[in-house]
């Protein structure tokens, strides 16, 4: 979240000398985390990067084969597509849900948050096995689809099953950022819009929706990035024919011992992820931060 300053708060004067010593000691507090991050994250990442360019032989060979072996590119495309579908479905489901949460009373809101978070608190395996039971041939979902005339649709082992389960699992990551942004939107802006001649719908479209976009962008980028790296769900609910990138990387490293090729895939996904984050950052730029600040300042006025 961007730092938020309220308009009402006067700027704090710079601390005089006594605070100086405490300040100098401040960065020391970061040291444990920095050491851990360097040891367990930065160094391994650099090693992967190095491997991707040098293993089995120095050069761009691993990256070239990413785009030329036909298989990897298809998996990449499938992974991006699944992540995109999960994100779009998530936004569609979460937006009205988060909006209702801002309108609900205390109790109803607590229940709604719990409903979203329960799958989050459930073990990954239990959740995926539950979906397996539901979506197996002759299972509950198939039965329901049969009732509406869709007949024998095989779900288990398909990319659809994977996407459905991922959407559910990732929903909290979508709902919570949206809710926190929406909650800060001053509802009196909607009254103002109506008093100025815009219908409820027009006010929503021109005032509320633009102000809620930072929450949508935050939720969507979070879900998209998480979806790109999903492993357990596609492994259990999908099939080898519909592997996603995480499975392929796993096979490369553990079975084929192709560390360079796996590293190249990982690095490529990292680049995609950073690009997505940068794009969402642009969407939640300074204007949006100002919007949130205004919403908060407005609440303080009362």
């Amino acid at each position, binding site marked *: 979240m961007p730092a938020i300053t309220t308009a009402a708060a006067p700027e704090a004067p710079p601390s005089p000398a006594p605070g100086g010593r405490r300040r100098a000691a401040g960065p020391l507090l970061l040291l444990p985390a920095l050491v851990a991050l360097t040891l367990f994250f930065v160094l391994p990442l650099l090693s992967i990067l190095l491997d991707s360019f040098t293993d089995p032989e120095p050069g761009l060979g691993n990256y070239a084969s990413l785009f030329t072996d036909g298989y990897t590119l298809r998996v990449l495309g499938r992974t991006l597509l699944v992540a995109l579908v999960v994100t779009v479905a998530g936004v569609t489901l979460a937006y009205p849900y988060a909006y209702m949460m801002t309108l609900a009373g205390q109790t109803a809101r607590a229940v709604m948050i719990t409903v979203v978070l329960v799958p989050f608190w459930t073990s990954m395996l239990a959740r995926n096995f539950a979906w397996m039971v539901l979506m197996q041939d002759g299972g509950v979902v198939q039965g329901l689809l049969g009732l509406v005339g869709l007949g024998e649709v095989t779900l288990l082992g398909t990319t659809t099953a994977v996407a459905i389960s991922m959407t559910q699992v990732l929903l909290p990551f979508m709902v919570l950022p949206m809710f926190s942004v929406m909650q800060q939107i001053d509802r*009196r802006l909607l*009254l103002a819009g109506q*008093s*100025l001649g815009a219908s409820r719908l*027009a006010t929503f479209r021109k005032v509320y929706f633009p102000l809620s976009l930072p929450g949508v962008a935050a939720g969507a980028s979070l879900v998209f990035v998480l979806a790109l790296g999903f492993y357990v769900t596609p492994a259990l609910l999908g099939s080898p024919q519909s592997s996603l990138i995480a499975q392929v990387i796993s096979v490369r490293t553990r079975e084929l011992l192709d560390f360079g090729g796996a590293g190249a895939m990982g690095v490529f996904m990292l680049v995609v992820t950073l690009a997505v984050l940068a794009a969402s950052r642009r969407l939640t730029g300074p204007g949006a931060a100002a919007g949130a600040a205004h919403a908060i300042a407005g609440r303080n006025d009362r």
Partner: protein
Amino acid sequence: MTTPTSDGGRIELTSLCKRYGSGPLVVDDVTLDIASGEFLTLLGPSGSGKTTTLNMIAGFTDVTSGGIRLGGRDIAPLPPHKRNFGMVFQNYALFPHMTVAQNIAFPLRERRVPKAEIARRVAEVLELVDLTGMDGRRPDELSGGQQQRVALARAVVFSPSVLLLDEPLSALDRKLRQSLQQEIKRLHQELKLTFVFVTHDQDEAMSLSDRIAVFNDGRIEKVGTPADLYRNPGTRFVARFLGESNLFDGSPRPGGGYEWHGCKWAADDSAPPGHDLVVRPERLRLAGTPGEVPERANRVPATVTGLYFQGTHQRVELDYGHGSTGSAVLPPDATGAELRPGGGVIAYWDPGHQVLVTRDPRT
């Protein structure tokens, strides 16, 4: 857009009531006729129903029963965006994702006004509120006073026949509030719109309004010009809420006069029981000894509890005993009683300067 006729800004509220669910009436039988071009203030403490009444006029709150007419036309069934009122909110309610110019252009865009016309009118109204050159700024780059002026500009740019103001100044500090009061007064004179202004600040109401409707407990206690309400508050509530009062809860004596804890006072009008006697602070004089009190004056012993010299005048806080307190406002060089906190004085006044007010307007 309709051009406001001479009567276009007239608002008639008839027996307006509001009740949430099966709760008590929040607004109870409010009837009010607001003339076109009038500056009318709905004044009352929080929870008195003034804001709910304004919200019903604006269309944000459904009417439980009663009627709202604008320029003779029933507008109760219309949604807010079709009522063509300008509205100014306490927290400004500017759209944070739009510039000043975009904010002000919003109502014009919604009305499909041509682009060139929009630009012209935005510039015009920016000049009216003295914010020329600010069009590219965002609301969070403006001070509170500037934001409220943008909100005013946005609310009048589409030439509504009525401007509704919901405590527009209460979020500002005192100095800014005074300058914006003048600004609002000037806008009212220049635009000749009907202003319906909600506030809980009696000074604001007194200095701005043509007429004030005092709200208490969902009802209108009294409607009148500021001077009229001050001189003849009519009810105990209005006397207490508008200006300061020395209030004595005694009873009228049979055969004329008024009695309060053994003090017998002359009274011109013979009132029925259930009336308090009110004297405004500036009508009160203080004497040190009974001999200094003029013959015909009504008098009461009092203890000075506080003395405040304020340049143009001095304020004396008084305690009359029996749970009754009040104050006197004297010229800065007033002589007579020797004033010191804790000292005893005799407060007196001309019987013509006292008024009787009912305790409960419903009886």
